[in-house]
């Protein structure tokens, strides 16, 4: 044996394969021995190796582990290639991570490089259109003070929470305000029940797990990211221009007075100088024993409208350390967000100004503001009122893990999230609000809010391999969560001047007369659970996972506080089977199947109890007016969980050396015991409704994710990523043993003429069915005619809603499709992200209310005189206004340039980019941007419903952004 030959010293340098910059901190080891060292700042190393050494192993986080044979030379220089797949190979699942090839349920993980890049107003904006089956809809448009509506795989509840559970670094129910896009390492979406069951009663809407960036071993690194964005008006409804309107007064088509002004009212509210800027500065680094990452940010968002801003700053700190000979690991995270929001503009409130007679002026001839009782002068409002909310959100969490013996690890996780705000608003003495409602004495208001969430979750993990090939991974735990919320507000008027604003509420006169107002509330709830999971893996070929969560919530009836949520899933990696060895074009093929039960506890606190409600003041015999009390609810001690059971079958594949990869999932989910306020017998009960478990909804669908490398050459590459989903969501039943309801109506159109509900869903129908009259033409005088059930035509008042009304459309898109084209040419990159929805209808309320002469002499859409010019009848809801909503938009177009540095001494990397968002929209829909129309929940598809005035949406925008990413 030559083993005892002389040892020698090998030196060399390790560099990055792409940029040839030196890599410090790389571990260099002799294979099969404990001898090793690390590279220095300049990437160099020197290692004394025994004579028998055959191979050196180079490992570094984020790079492919590389082995080099030890030859005769005493110098080994090597370049390490970045390991793009290494990070992606690990998927974050509930209470842990899993290797991607071991995952047996439907989980989609999105990395920062795939994030939607248009300046997120909310962390979830980053994944809009990126996850098949996850609908994220910005009903508030580009309003910086709104969050999107989120729904995964259809409606799962009627009255409870429908949104996915957000878990941030293990904090259940995490606060999205605490997430900045530059701090996020990955967003993982647990789509099916077999994955989500570990989160039990909060997982009916799915689970979104966000992991933030952590420090890595190595010298200190600094990164700085910024962007600047400017927004422009887009797709505004076409109301008559001032000149057109005046012309129609002149020729007698509009019966109104021409006051001689020509005012573009809505434009007066536009903040033409808007500029949004974001800065994020992060420091990170670490040693073998500990690592850290700290970031600070400043984000100032200005909406397209005046008095519509959100200014935020804050930071995030993460420390990981090891002790007790690496047996004890601890991880601490601290994040905080301070924000100051100008809420005065609310969601836009544009209706009044769109419809205002444009020959008027917002000012009186003497320069004072023009007011009238029946409208609001919005420009005056934003000049004479204030409404500022100052919010602070902080979360801290810690996880300490101890390796007790080999394979057995005990951990305890604790977190607290505190969210509080103080809001103040004031209306000047001379403001319209004050003049018309508060006797011209001003109005001051303050409110404060505090919500605290605690979680403690001890867990025990055990990993063992039996007979070499049977791998078991077990986790068991207990979860205790407590949430408490309180609120206080007070308002007063009767001020003598505007000096105090809302800062001296007691000075208002109305405290003495009892007209000042004050209110407060406080409530809490508890969630307690025991949970466990066993993952089994045989030779990485056959996998199985079993989950059980036993959970209780204080919100449920005394008889049904606790529920069980089991799940089972299996997977089969076929690639490794002998019979697949000859299929050379195949890289990977995995079949998955899962079944899981989850629940929903997202209901109001104290829902099962009988409470005494206030009934207003009444005169007591002693002459004092006191509050009255009476029962305000019917009790339901049997109130229990909504339970969803879901089947999911999927396949993950990769072909042609990664040129084509993706996943296909097929699911069916049934949610039973849906909670709804059902009508009770009245008499004998006091109120006519009871909160009870009655209904069942189900949905089924297909989700396809594809990723293809179309072209790959040395200088040029073109990748295409596609996300497709198709689903059908039905309301199967709406009754139980006690209560029977034939249908339920949603989406109150409201407004002038009280047109009732747009959507009616009978048992067995798809969710989101428009139900109403069918247009049958006009009478000679222009009045409406509609079809009766027997096919004859009749005016509106002769129709029976039970017999003559029909399903006239559906508001839930059947198909969601998005695709990303990424081009790279040398140092340039170009990304075009298209997103669309297909196979659904929208009720065009814009046409219904403003495309009608019935609206005159308020300003109307041009179509009132063109397309709808012959209609003389009043407002009617019918299929005349139901349109196809199909659209596809170029949501994001980004052009980037990465500056090539010869030396990386100062700069690690520098990338500059420009992004245009909402650049191009293809649709036949004639109303507002269909992208902002709600497509989630039970009242989808009614244009601008759920906007601040339920009539006109927040102003459509197109944004242009410039940004840079730099690393030192």
């Amino acid at each position: 044996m030559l083993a005892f030959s002389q040892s020698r010293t090998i030196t060399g340098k390790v560099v990055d394969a792409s940029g040839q910059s030196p890599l410090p901190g790389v571990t260099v080891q002799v294979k099969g021995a404990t001898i090793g060292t690390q590279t220095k700042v300049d990437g160099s190393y020197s290692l004394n190796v025994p004579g028998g050494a055959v191979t050196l192993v180079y490992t570094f986080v984020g790079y492919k582990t590389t082995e080099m044979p030890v030859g005769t030379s005493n110098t080994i220089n090597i370049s390490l290639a970045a390991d793009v797949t290494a990070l992606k190979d690990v998927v974050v699942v509930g209470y842990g991570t899993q290797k991607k090839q071991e995952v047996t349920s439907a989980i989609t993980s999105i990395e920062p490089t795939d994030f939607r890049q248009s300046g997120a107003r909310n962390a979830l904006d980053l994944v809009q259109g990126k996850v098949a089956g996850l609908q994220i809809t910005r009903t508030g448009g580009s309003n910086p003070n709104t969050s999107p509506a989120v729904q995964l795989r259809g409606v799962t509840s009627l009255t409870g929470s429908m949104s996915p559970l957000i878990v941030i670094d293990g904090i259940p129910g995490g606060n999205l305000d605490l997430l900045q896009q530059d701090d996020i390492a990955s967003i993982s979406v647990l789509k099916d029940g077999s994955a989500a069951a570990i989160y039990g009663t909060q997982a009916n809407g799915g689970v979104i797990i966000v992991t933030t960036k952590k420090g890595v071993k190595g010298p200190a690194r600094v990164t700085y990211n910024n962007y600047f964005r400017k927004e422009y008006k887009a797709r505004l409804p076409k109301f008559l221009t001032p000149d057109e309107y005046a012309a129609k007064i002149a020729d007698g088509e509009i019966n109104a007075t021409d006051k001689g002004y020509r005012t573009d009212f809505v434009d007066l509210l536009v903040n033409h100088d808007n500029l949004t800027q974001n800065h994020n500065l992060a420091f990170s680094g670490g040693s073998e024993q500990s690592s850290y990452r700290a970031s600070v940010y400043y984000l100032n968002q200005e909406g397209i409208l005046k008095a519509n801003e959100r200014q935020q700053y804050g930071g995030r700190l993460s420390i990981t350390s090891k002790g007790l000979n690496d047996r004890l690991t601890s991880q601490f995270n601290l994040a905080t967000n301070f924000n100051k929001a100008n809420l005065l503009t609310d969601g836009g409130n544009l209706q009044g100004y769109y419809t205002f007679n444009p020959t008027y002026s917002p000012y009186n001839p003497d320069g004072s503001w023009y007011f009238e009782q029946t409208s609001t002068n919005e420009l005056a409002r934003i000049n004479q009122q204030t409404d500022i909310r100052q919010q602070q959100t902080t979360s801290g969490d810690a996880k300490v893990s101890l390796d007790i013996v080999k394979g057995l690890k005990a951990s305890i996780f604790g977190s607290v999230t505190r969210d509080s705000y103080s809001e103040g608003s004031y209306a000047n003495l001379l403001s319209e609000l004050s003049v018309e409602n508060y006797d011209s004495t001003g109005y001051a208001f303050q409110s404060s809010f505090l919500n605290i969430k605690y979680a403690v979750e001890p867990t025990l993990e055990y990993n063992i391999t039996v007979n070499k090939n049977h791998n078991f991974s077990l986790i068991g735990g207990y979860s205790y969560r407590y949430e408490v919320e309180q609120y206080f507000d007070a308002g007063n008027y009767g001020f003598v001047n505007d000096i105090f604003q809302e800062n001296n509420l007691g000075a208002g006169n109305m405290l003495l007369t009892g007209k000042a107002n004050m209110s407060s509330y406080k409530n809490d709830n508890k969630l307690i659970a025991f949970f466990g999971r066993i993952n089994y893996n045989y030779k990485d070929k056959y996998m199985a996972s079993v989950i059980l969560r036993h959970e209780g919530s204080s919100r449920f009836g005394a008889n049904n506080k606790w529920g069980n949520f089991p799940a089972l899933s299996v997977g089969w990696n076929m690639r490794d089977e002998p019979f697949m060895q000859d299929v050379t074009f195949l890289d990977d093929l995995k079949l998955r199947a899962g079944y899981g039960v989850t629940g929903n506890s997202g209901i109001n606190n104290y829902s099962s109890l009988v409470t005494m409600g206030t009934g207003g003041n009444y005169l007591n015999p002693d002459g004092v007016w006191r509050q009255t009390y009476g029962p305000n609810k019917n009790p339901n001690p049997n109130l229990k969980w909504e339970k969803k059971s879901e089947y999911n079958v999927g396949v993950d594949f990769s072909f042609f050396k990664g040129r084509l990869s993706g996943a296909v999932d097929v699911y069916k989910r049934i949610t039973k015991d849906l909670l709804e306020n059902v009508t009770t017998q009245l008499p004998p009960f006091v109120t006519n409704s009871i909160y009870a478990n009655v209904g069942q909804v189900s949905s089924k669908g297909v989700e396809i994710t594809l990723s293809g490398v179309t072209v790959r050459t040395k200088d040029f590459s073109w990748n295409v990523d596609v996300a497709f989903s198709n689903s059908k969501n039905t309301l199967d039943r709406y009754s139980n043993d006690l209560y029977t309801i034939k249908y339920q109506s949603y989406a109150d159109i409201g407004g002038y003429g009280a047109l009732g509900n747009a959507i009616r869903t009978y048992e067995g129908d798809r969710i989101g069915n428009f139900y109403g009259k069918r247009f049958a033409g006009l009478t000679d005088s222009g009045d409406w005619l509609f079809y009766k059930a027997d096919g004859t035509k009749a005016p509106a008042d002769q129709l029976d809603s039970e017999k003559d009304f029909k399903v006239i459309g559906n508001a839930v898109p059947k198909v969601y499709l998005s695709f990303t084209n990424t081009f790279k040419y040398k140092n340039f990159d170009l990304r075009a992200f298209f997103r669309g929805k297909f196979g659904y209808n929208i009720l065009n309320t814009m046409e219904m209310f403003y495309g009608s002469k019935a609206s005159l002499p308020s300003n109307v859409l041009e179509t009132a005189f063109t397309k709808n010019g012959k209609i003389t009848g009043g407002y009617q809801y019918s299929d005349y206004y139901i349109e196809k909503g199909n659209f596809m938009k170029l949501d994001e177009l980004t052009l980037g340039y990465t500056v090539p540095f010869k030396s990386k001494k100062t700069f690690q990397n520098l990338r500059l980019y420009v992004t245009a968002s909402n650049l191009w929209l293809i649709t036949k829909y004639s109303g507002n941007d269909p992208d902002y129309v709600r497509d989630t929940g039970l009242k989808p598809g009614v244009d601008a419903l759920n906007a601040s005035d339920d009539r006109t949406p927040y102003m459509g925008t197109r944004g242009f952004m410039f940004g840079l990413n730099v690393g030192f």
Partner: protein
Amino acid sequence: MYPFKTCRMKRFKKIAVYTSLALLPVLANSCTNLDEKAYDTLLTNNFYNNKNEVVSAVLRPYTHANAWITPGQSGWWRLSELSADQLAWPQKGRHGYDNGQWIRLHYHTWTVDESTVLNCWNLLWTGLGFCNDAIGNIEGRDAAKMGLTQEEKDGFTGELRLLRAFHYLRLMDIYGNIPIVTTVGEPVSPETKTRAEVFSFIEQEIKDNIDKSPNLSKALLGRMSKAGGYAMLAEMYLNAEKWSGTARWDDCIAACDALINSTAGGMNGALVLDTNLTDTYKPNNDLSKEIIFSIAYDYIISNFSPQWTGDFYHFNQGQINGNPINGNDGVVVIPGVYTTFEDADKRKKEWLLIGPQWKYGSADTLPVICSGGNEYDGKQLVFVDNIRKNAQGSTVSDMTQGEENSGVRFNKYRLGPLTDPSYRSCDWAVYRLSWIYFVKAEAIMRKNGGVATQEAVDLVNTIKKRAYSAADWPAHQYTTTTLTMDELLAELGREFIFEGYRRQELIRFGKYTTGTWWDHNASEAYRELFPIPRTQLQLNANLKQNDGYPN
């Protein structure tokens, strides 16, 4: 190295064991406790512990009665007035179509799914449920434990039973055949009783409790009392022929006399008629001498104010009244009703609003200008006694052809200007003595074969005289010849316009379903009762639909 490591390990194991042991009892106690703690809500089982709590439960049905007895919500008032011959809520341009519900009320074409009909049912039965709940809780508890004397306890339950009878009375008026429920939740599906059975139940309840209830006094402003009990009996017996099948004219007269003779107390001294047309309706009408039972408001002290402004007021009405209260431009007087008032009749000017409108306090110099983008935007508000599209020169007049200024308007109750010390505090009279005079007169005439006696004429003239000047009066007073039944119906209409009784009157006079007025044609006889709402029929198999309506 080894010894040190082992030692550290051992120590750590120790710590872990002790920590676990220490945590164990903590976890065992609290780790599965899911009891709820209510911080800001009252739970029913810890209420009724002192007098203030009891009173607050006794008064709950009254604030609720505001919802169904007064205009402003779809309760008893809207069904009673908007289906009759004096008032309507026509569509006015883009406003007021409201899914056709007001049109169907006017045409008598309401359906079993009608929201106005369902809403009235829900409001009334919920109010009745508040009575049942409070009666059950108070009767079931020891007086001393609630901090009451036995007398106070009996007074409260007597009052509540009368108030419950009042709910039943008005339910019977609208729906006829209804269940009788006296305990919350029992039975779960109560069965329909005939109108006659309901009638006897109500009569018995009133008789059993009228003497236990306190006399009317200022302290009982806005509350049910012995006087209210007699007024209910008067209403019951006046309509007894229709409601129970048996005429009760003498009982009716006796109940009226108990009030006319002021045997059951009064709100401000003895119960007597107010001497003018305004005292009953003015902002401080708590000083009225003739109101028997009212819903009491006090905006100044307690923020509780009339809800009817939404139904009656134009979008710019506040300027007329010198306050900021506007409405939805809803209920108007049907064309032709205005002219049934003689010009000498002061009620015509005092209680109704017509013609050009002027800003409050401007002595008819500053016009009220319409705003809000409707037909007369920018022009003076002028109420007209017709319902048609005058701005377009149209003469078509029906329920869909209104404009923002269509119809003569309500001006009976007054909020007063902002500066009024009783601003927005006028109580809504449910029963007033003038009405009892008419009830007695009608009972006498019907007992007399539909012919007026001098006593009946005197009763009616006593009320009518207030509306005329001394000079005009002789020419306008009734005689036994001129006070025919038809004339009595017309005079009821003039005196009690807006007060909610019109449907009841038309039914008693046999005109509700046979008569025609403005845009209304005669309807089916079964329309004298409203249907039992279909949603309730579907839930409760023991309910029976009224004749003529589909199940």
